[in-house]
């Protein structure tokens, strides 16, 4: 049966290590001739600028999924951090308006608030032992409500130019996202923390018997996830030059979708940062190309659903092939 060369090729493709990356490349190659402006530097920039902040959120979520949890509050943390940043830095209404230290203080505030919110999630999950899904669902509602309440729905403009540069100059944003993603990758593959993360995701009880400080590592992971959301908030906020209480409001399922397409398991213990990178890239490519093709956004929504399903199907097929062999 497998003697047909085409079939064998398909099988090998399915088992390839970076399937999603190849998918991205094939997809791009296939669409480029038909899509005006798709294969251009400008468009690549557009895609990257769009994908960068989402990537940072997704990487944080990847860690949480590997440890066997889930964090539904990441995008609302982005919103609140964005608001806090605006409140600190804005020339119009910021507490430190015009101050020389406004930008560093704003960055610090954004990152620490988001890490703090991550800590609340972490406490709810580890100390209170609330299932992560419901714990972070609650904080999602709370945090986004808080962001809107703090600003009374207003967007905060007048952000200092030094801060805005972070989002305007793509290389700065690219460096920030790239470096943190790379760090997360290294942490997962080369450090004790990474090994512990996978072990807890595989079997938290066995890990705890083996002396892994399960509660501490899990807690820390939620903090990191919150921190990544804060970092993403910096990119989002600088990119849109606005502290916005509904920043990233509709991105939650995009983020989860991208991570899952990247091959991270919702059951914990399985997943890679590189997969998430390609998952984010894939969704961004789909979104961008369909936009360029002038398709209506509901068609794009449907195609995205199809893409997620297709990715999951491929993953299932691949696992079946692996166990059959």
């Amino acid at each position, binding site marked *: 049966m497998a003697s047909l060369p085409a079939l064998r090729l398909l099988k090998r493709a399915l088992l390839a290590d970076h399937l999603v990356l190849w998918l991205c490349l094939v997809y791009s190659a296939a669409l480029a001739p038909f899509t005006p402006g798709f294969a251009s530097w400008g468009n690549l920039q557009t895609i990257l600028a769009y994908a960068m902040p989402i990537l940072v959120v997704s990487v944080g979520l990847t860690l949480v999924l590997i440890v066997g949890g889930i964090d539904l509050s990441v995008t609302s943390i982005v919103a609140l951090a964005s608001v806090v940043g605006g409140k600190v830095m804005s020339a119009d209404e910021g507490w430190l308006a015009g101050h020389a230290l406004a930008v560093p203080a704003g960055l610090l505030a954004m990152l620490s608030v988001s890490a703090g919110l991550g800590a609340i999630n972490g406490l709810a999950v580890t100390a*209170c032992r609330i299932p992560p899904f419901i714990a972070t*669902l*609650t904080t999602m509602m709370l945090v986004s409500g808080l962001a809107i309440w703090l600003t009374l729905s207003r967007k905060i403009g007048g952000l200092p130019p030094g801060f805005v540069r972070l989002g305007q100059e793509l290389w700065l944003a690219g460096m920030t996202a790239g470096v943190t993603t790379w760090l997360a990758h290294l942490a997962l593959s080369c450090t004790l923390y990474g090994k512990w993360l996978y072990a807890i995701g595989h079997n938290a009880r066995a890990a705890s018997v083996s002396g892994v400080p399960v509660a501490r590592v899990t807690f820390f992971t939620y903090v990191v996830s919150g921190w990544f959301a804060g970092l993403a908030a910096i990119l989002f906020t600088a990119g849109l030059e606005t502290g916005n209480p509904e920043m990233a409001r509709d991105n939650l399922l995009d983020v989860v979708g991208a991570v899952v397409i990247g091959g991270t398991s919702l*059951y914990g213990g399985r997943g890679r940062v590189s997969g998430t990178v390609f998952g984010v890239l894939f969704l961004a490519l789909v979104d961008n190309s369909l936009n360029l093709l002038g398709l209506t956004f509901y068609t794009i929504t449907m195609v995205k659903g199809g893409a*997620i399903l297709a990715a*999951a199907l491929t993953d299932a097929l691949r696992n079946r092939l692996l166990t059959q062999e």
Partner: protein
Amino acid sequence: MTSPIASHLGLRVLHQASLLLFAVVLVVFGMLSPAFLQTSNMVNILIQTSSTGILAVGMTFVLLTAGVDLSVGAIMFVAAAVGGKLILGGWAFGGVLAIMLGIGVLFGALNALFITRLAIMAFVVTLATRYFGRGLGLRITETRAMNLPESFYELGAARLLGVPVPVLIFAGVVLLAHLALTRTPFGRQVYAVGTDVEAARKAGINTGAVRFSVYAICGLCAAAAGIVALSQAPAVSPSFGNNREFMAIAAAVLGGTSLFGGRGAVFPGTVLGAVLIQTIENGLNVLNVNPYLYPLITSGVIFVAVLLDAIRSRVLAQANRRRIYTVAQPD
């Protein structure tokens, strides 16, 4: 060490934690506004719970098998969009309702097909169908709000023996679901599958069929919830049913349903959870609270409920821990 009597009392209180919280919410709102505790307002709360409640009942089936369905809001939307189109196209009301329910089942079956046959995680499948459904619904409605004729409004306003029809539908769904879960072989098998799929398969249960059914039921409930929602506000807007899945899950979890499967009940559990959420919303309306505080208060109460539940299961686990010796056995 606390005395056994005190800990026993504490246990009994914790057992009824969600009921207690519910009572606290009622008393607080009642004290702040006399209008709140009027019978007519209680009826209002029930009417307003109906839609989310039905959705949560369907969700309970899925959660009991350790699955999840993120697409219910989208199913509601598609069913309502198609139903709206048909009824504006002059179709008979009864026929439209039947078709809407059919769409719900169909969508649920689609979810089920991917989840049971192709063994993809429910979270991912229903996330994908959620996108798909919302896109499809927007396509059908051409992204604009659709106002529906009187028939839906009449359904919502009608009363049978003095009981509003939406409440009757809700009660009917709850009764059927409760009987199905507690009194039929299928219901008990749902619990079995949720506790341990592999064991259920070995026990000769057709696990595929059971899991298939729960998603179909969930789809059916979603469509029914859509109908009840339309009877409340006879219009399909592009945000119809958006993010309802989270409310439904929250209601089921507040009612004591475990996200890990095998534990939970439609009655009183899920019903209580759904009513609690709606009661908060209603009370805030009645008290004319600043709209910015709504999400903060609602999520605060949910958090307390969830926390109480977590404490309860911890205390229970401790109390149920096997004792090796008792004081009565001096040896």
